[in-house]
């Protein structure tokens, strides 16, 4: 009889998911490696990058603006009514601003992008695999990494920080609107408080996070798309995996990144 080792005592399901997790982690790592090795060699498809920035960045603008506006407004409302009894209304601008700049801006923007862009990329690439278009790219002597992965990764890395910056502005604008109409705060006062009390670190943290979040969104999306094997059913599966993985990485990563940036803050 085979002796019992610690591996056989772990439930099989858990072992399988853990194996899958490691395989996907390795796969994403390999994809990143290919990205770096191929981005250094010619040719660079600039027009494909511009196209992706349009599709990923510009086309996400309405979604991000609506998200930011409503988030800012809700936050101002919550803080405003919550602090009212303590006479804390004048602190609303500062609270809203720092929450948006450090947390809500990058996290909500990234989550929305993970849903919109992550899903789009995974399903598009997955369909290209199923219809052999990825094979065709290779068969015609070109590289799917160069033509498909690099433009999408770069476009995400460029677009997300810009979208976060826009979200920062629009979110505070939402706060200001509620501050004026609901809390009776003077808009000029509100604006001055936002500018005076938020420092450059607040912006930097938000933008710094967004660079990581961009990678969390786009790398799994490309990876799961490229690894579609057996037909269209898997395209749906890959899309789900891309969105779930991206969103989880953003939420979990946010904790560690926040911690990391606080340490930097103290340091400086």
């Amino acid at each position, binding site marked *: 009889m085979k002796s019992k080792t610690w591996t056989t005592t772990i439930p099989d399901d858990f072992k399988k998911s853990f194996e899958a997790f490691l395989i996907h982690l390795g796969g994403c790592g390999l994809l990143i490696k290919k990205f770096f090795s191929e981005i250094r060699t010619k*040719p660079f498809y600039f027009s494909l990058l511009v196209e992706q920035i349009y599709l990923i960045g510009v086309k996400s603008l309405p979604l991000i603006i609506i998200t930011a506006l409503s988030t800012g407004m809700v936050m101002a409302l919550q803080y405003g009514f919550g602090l009212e009894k303590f006479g804390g209304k004048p602190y609303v601008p500062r609270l809203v601003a720092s929450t948006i700049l450090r947390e809500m801006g990058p996290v909500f923007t990234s989550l929305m992008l993970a849903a919109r862009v992550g899903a789009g990329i995974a399903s598009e690439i997955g369909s290209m695999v199923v*219809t*052999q*278009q990825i*094979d*065709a790219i*290779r*068969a*015609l*002597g*070109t*590289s799917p990494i160069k033509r498909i992965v690099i433009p999408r990764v770069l476009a995400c890395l460029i677009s997300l920080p810009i979208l976060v910056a826009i979200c920062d502005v629009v979110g505070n604008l939402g706060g200001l609107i509620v501050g004026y109409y609901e809390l009776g705060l003077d808009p000029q006062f509100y604006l001055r408080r936002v500018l005076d009390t938020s420092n450059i670190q607040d912006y930097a943290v938000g933008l710094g996070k967004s660079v990581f979040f961009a990678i969390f969104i786009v790398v799994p999306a490309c990876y799961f798309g490229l690894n579609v094997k057996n037909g269209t059913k898997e395209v749906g599966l890959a899309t789900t995996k891309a969105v779930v993985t991206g969103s989880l990485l953003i939420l979990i990563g946010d904790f560690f990144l926040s911690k990391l940036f606080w340490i930097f803050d103290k340091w400086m």
Partner: protein
Amino acid sequence: MDVIQIKNFKKSFGTNLVHDGVTFDVKKGECLGLVGGSGAGKSVILRSLIGLEQADSGSILINSVDITHMSEKELVEIRKKIAYVFQNGALFDSMTVFDNLAYSLRAHTQLNESQIDDRISVQLDEFGLLSAKLLYPSELSGGMQKRIGLARAIMLGPDIILYDEPTAGLDPYNTIKIQELILRMKSKGVTSILVTHDMPTGIAVCDRFVFLQNKVISEDGQTEELLNKPDSLINQFIKGQIV
């Protein structure tokens, strides 16, 4: 001279052993028919010839150069010389027919846009598809997509063409068109392998046949010779007696 040599090629997917020592070669200018039942592994052989699949063991030589262990980068030069005609066309659906055909010219030649335009117009005219130039693949019929797929594959003027079931699912008109195109390429001295279940087309264009069965090549001979031999595997295959 042998342009393509496959020696003792072995390939499996997981536990599914598909090829167990496939060996054959193709001479310069020859059109070889590769036949066998569904799932015998014909497409896998074609894919391996341009490095889309890696052999587990054995070797593949193109013009006496071993490509078996080449990296994607090294394969680029090989792929410029070998055209792969995908079974379903595999056209880029986000691009027009024109951009599909321009793809390899833009990637591998120094031609400017007007020269590319000229070349593509000539090619499409030759294929009788000039009117489709600015359409998207989704606006074309299956037969047209296949012909465009063929046109795209040969834009760079390849030495070798691999056809994967180019006539499957086509009406007689489109089938004849494809046959003519294959014969035209053959008359230009191109070496080719034709994977097909459409035996009339195979017989019309192939000089030689190899029969893939039980994971190996079980028959290899000139078309005439095999057809005249009543108990040849090809004849049994045509009559539906074996797969």
